[in-house]
């Protein structure tokens, strides 16, 4: 198995992950791996797994949770094959699937004991066979109340049912796992302060990342690319 350097961006629903990832994509020298949503929505024309999951969670939780994390690994593998030496920044991970979402689904009674066991069996095998130890987690940390406010503002249809109670439960899972339950380096970014419309705040967050995980993760060397073209011009 080839050596992959992977950083995973984690955080609650509504924290502003998409906006954050866009900023990372523009400023850092890395390969982005987004959640493979389309792989969950169109299953070769046979239906939409995400719809089934939302419509009858108890019936489809195991199917969705197990398929979701396997497709994450597929996506990372597929992109890594295209750029074998790139550092990957990945939107969520098999780890947050396991330690936050699937665990919560089990506690809520949406996966029974047997399904949880089978799920964990898959997880152990797949992580053992496919995954390197992560280089780091970037934890976008917010109060659940902030997430709820942002969710209401963006009003995506599939998120209308998300309650403060659920966000709080997810928040606690993230806290337990990332602040106490892992030996991978975790960079905690305070995302209660709005960063979506504040370029200075965005620059601060990026600097915190490069301070913590540089030189593996570094900003795109834009200046040198510019210089190169000027030199070329001068030689004419």
């Amino acid at each position, binding site marked *: 198995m080839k050596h992959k350097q992977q950083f995973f961006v984690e955080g609650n629903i509504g924290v502003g992950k998409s906006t954050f990832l866009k900023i990372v994509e523009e400023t850092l020298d890395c390969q982005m791996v987004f959640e493979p949503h389309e792989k969950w929505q169109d299953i070769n024309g046979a239906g939409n*797994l995400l719809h089934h999951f939302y419509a009858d969670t108890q019936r489809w939780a195991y199917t969705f949770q197990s398929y979701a994390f396997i497709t994450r690994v597929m996506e990372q593998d597929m992109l890594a094959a295209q750029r074998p030496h790139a550092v990957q920044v990945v939107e969520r991970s098999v780890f947050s699937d396991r330690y936050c979402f699937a665990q919560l689904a089990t506690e809520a009674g949406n996966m029974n004991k047997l399904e949880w066991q089978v799920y964990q069996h898959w997880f152990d095998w797949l992580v053992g066979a496919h995954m390197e130890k992560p280089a780091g987690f970037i934890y976008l940390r917010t109060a659940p109340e902030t997430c709820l406010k942002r969710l209401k503002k963006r009003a995506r249809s599939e998120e209308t049912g998300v309650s403060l109670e659920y966000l709080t439960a997810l928040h606690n899972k993230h806290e337990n796992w990332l602040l106490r339950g892992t030996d991978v380096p975790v960079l905690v970014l305070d995302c209660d302060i709005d960063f979506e419309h504040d370029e200075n705040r965005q620059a601060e967050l990026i600097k915190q990342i490069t301070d913590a995980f540089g030189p593996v993760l570094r900003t795109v060397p834009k200046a040198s690319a510019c210089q190169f073209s000027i030199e070329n011009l001068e030689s004419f």
Partner: protein
Amino acid sequence: MPFVTALMLFLEGNIGAGKSSFLQILADHLNCKVIFEPHHRWQASDDSENILDLFYKNPKRWAYTFETYTLLTRLCDHQVHTSKHDHQFVISERSPYSGRYCFAANTHAQGHLTDLEWELYQSLCDHLFAQHVAKPTGMIYLKTSPEICYKRLNIRNRKEESTLPLEYLEQLHAKHETWLLGKQDIPTLVLDGNLPYLHDNESKQHLVKLVSDFFGIGKLNETQAAVFC
């Protein structure tokens, strides 16, 4: 990543085709490692719930969980056994392939796996087979008529097989035939499984010779040794 393995054979055949007796003969006469079908894992569970039971009682609800779990256990076993080279060759009782092309395909044909679940299952197979299943050197198809399989099941009287109808064996038989005798690119030795179980030494030797000759097992000794020194 596909593994390099000494020599890998898959033994395929219906329930009651005579696989266990056949495996015993090969194990006695050839230096091979046998991977038995991980049946015990589908029945044993840490608590009272048993996935095989659930599947039989309510196949529509549990087919996907059952089929993905059997897939996982087969993949696990293959990975463990094909990464060790302490035998001249490895023979596997069934395989992730027959799990897919015979059993899961039949579960789908019966309507227990929905089209969506079948697509999910197949997309997992496509990805995982490419990385975790070593292409076998060959396959042995123990071809036995469903009626004879059915008779044998009634004689041996294993608890979980006692209620299997002849119709189910016929469906599985058809899946085996389509897959193994149809368009596929793995050398396959077809053996008649309708004959009564072999007891005399001479017939056993004959059977072993058929297998050795077909797959060139005797001749492989020297080259294999060179590769794995």
